[in-house]
């Protein structure tokens, strides 16, 4: 099994997609941070809630002064600021890269060369899961480093006391990305098509599926005079994990626990179901 893992890791680091996706991710984050920090600075400048108004009476009359208190307030939590860029963006790249990487194993026919060379075919499932985890680390590292650097440069102030929370957030993100990547890999292996996995996951992550269910439930409720909420049929973990919005960065560990559970569940599903598929199906 170690040989198979080494083989796939060798292939991983010689795949151009790894470096291309990392570069694109970095470029997108740079752009987003620059845009976002410009907006924050503008809003900060004009935000009424950050202004202090004081009046004083003097012989000459009443003096009204307005001062900007934003710069006097606490600095920006990197977890809050960076999480919005990292979460959804990395999820998309993990899905796309995983689908391409897994699909390449079958599309190019390399599977025929090696599948019969090992004692158990499920070794390949484990090796792909390892590669997905490694890629998740790589993309997360690139995204977090770039966003931190750009944020530190762009924002008026940046509080490094929140870095502990930020790293906890990154750890939770790693497990979430792992779970998403494994689902993408499973769909790719099931259908031998990278398009299926990419389209399904992207649709799910933009809440289009739950949105469609909401529309459907209105019709059903009208017709049958019921009060059901179809979207609640989606597992709550799924619902919480595939949105593109910024996840919880309060650092209270709930998200991390949630993410670990999700990752473990998908590891089990991927390896069990994938091992069954790769063992029982004829090699394409």
């Amino acid at each position, binding site marked *: 099994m170690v*040989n198979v893992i080494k083989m796939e890791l*060798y*292939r991983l680091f010689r795949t151009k997609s790894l470096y291309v996706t990392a570069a694109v991710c970095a470029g997108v984050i740079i752009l987003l941070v620059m845009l976002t920090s410009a907006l924050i600075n503008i809003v900060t400048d004009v935000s009424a809630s950050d202004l202090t108004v004081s009046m004083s009476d003097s012989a000459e009359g009443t003096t009204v002064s307005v001062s900007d208190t934003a710069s006097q307030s606490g600095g920006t939590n990197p977890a809050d600021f960076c999480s919005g860029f990292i979460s959804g963006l990395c999820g998309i790249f993990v899905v796309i890269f995983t689908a391409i990487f897994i699909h390449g194993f079958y599309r190019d026919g390399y599977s*025929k060369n090696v599948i019969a060379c090992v004692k158990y075919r499920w070794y390949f499932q484990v090796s792909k899961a390892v590669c997905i985890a490694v890629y998740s680390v790589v993309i997360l590292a690139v995204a977090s480093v770039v966003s931190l650097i750009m944020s530190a440069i762009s924002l008026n102030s940046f509080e490094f006391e929140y870095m502990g929370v930020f790293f906890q957030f990154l750890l939770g993100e790693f497990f979430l990305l792992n779970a998403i990547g494994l689902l993408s890999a499973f769909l790719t292996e099931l259908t031998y098509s990278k398009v299926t996995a990419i389209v399904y996951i992207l649709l799910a992550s933009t809440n289009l599926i739950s949105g469609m269910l909401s529309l459907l439930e209105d019709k059903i409720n009208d017709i049958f005079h019921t009060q059901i909420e179809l979207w609640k049929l989606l597992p709550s973990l799924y619902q919480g994990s595939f949105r593109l919005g910024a996840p919880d960065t309060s650092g209270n560990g709930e998200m991390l626990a949630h993410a670990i559970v999700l990752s473990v569940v998908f590891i089990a599903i991927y390896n069990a179901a994938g091992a069954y598929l790769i063992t029982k199906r004829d090699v394409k």
Partner: protein
Amino acid sequence: MEYILKTNMLTKQFKQQKAVDNVSVSIERGSIYGLIGRNGAGKTTFLRMIGGLAAPTSGEMEIMGFRSSDGTVNQAFERIGSLIEQPGIYKNMTAFENCRLKAMCCGVYSEDYVKAKLALAGLQDVGKKNVGNFSLGMKQRLGVAMATIGEPEMLILDEPINGLDPQGIIEVRDIIHRINKEQNITIVISSHILEELSKLATHYGIIHNGRLVEQLSHDELLGKCSARLEIVADSAEKAAKILKGLGCNYSVANEHMLFVNDNIEKSAAINKALVTGGIGVESLYRRSQSLEEYFISLISRA
């Protein structure tokens, strides 16, 4: 005589169609076994089964002493190298990297080993060129080289000379010969280019519509394709009795045609005996049969 592969009533069925239908072959260790058949005859499906890429619907295999009936045959697949259909290669990687991947999977990490395999296939000078830019012949040679990684005891090559120019065919043929002679690797090779196969194979299996029609050695095939008398008579049945009386080795093609495989130099005496016996002989002539003609005649009778 040691057999490296034996199959017994091996069958592969896809929905209503049997791609391989009760095929029983025996392949000697160290031989080059040529599997001959038309497109869609079931060659590739059979090779995929013995290579561990497809599970049989029914029947048994015994490879290197490991049997499918007791579930140990997977251990044999680890000792088989295969090139089935198109070579499985990553087009955006170099030849070295493609071979290195296979070598790593087999537990071999030596770069010199990979370079030696590339040299075996004549690809030692391709440098950092991506495989996607290789010619068809180079890709086929790379596929053969990759199939030999891990020092397999048996090599399965599915139409390795398809689409190659004459130079490429010669190169692949030389590689196969060298592998077989120097490393005593048993080779199972399929093709429908019969003349090329006849220059390589020591044994043949002819497959048609999923069924094994005939299995014979190279010498036996030569015997069947060698010079013979072809007799067209008004009654093959009556002529056969006379030939039998003469002690000739003959075969009946149809109700009017017979082949006499020996005593060819006695064609005049045979003609006289037939005419004297009241048989109307329309034609009698000596001819050799090419491999293609033998194959066609066999298939038409199957």
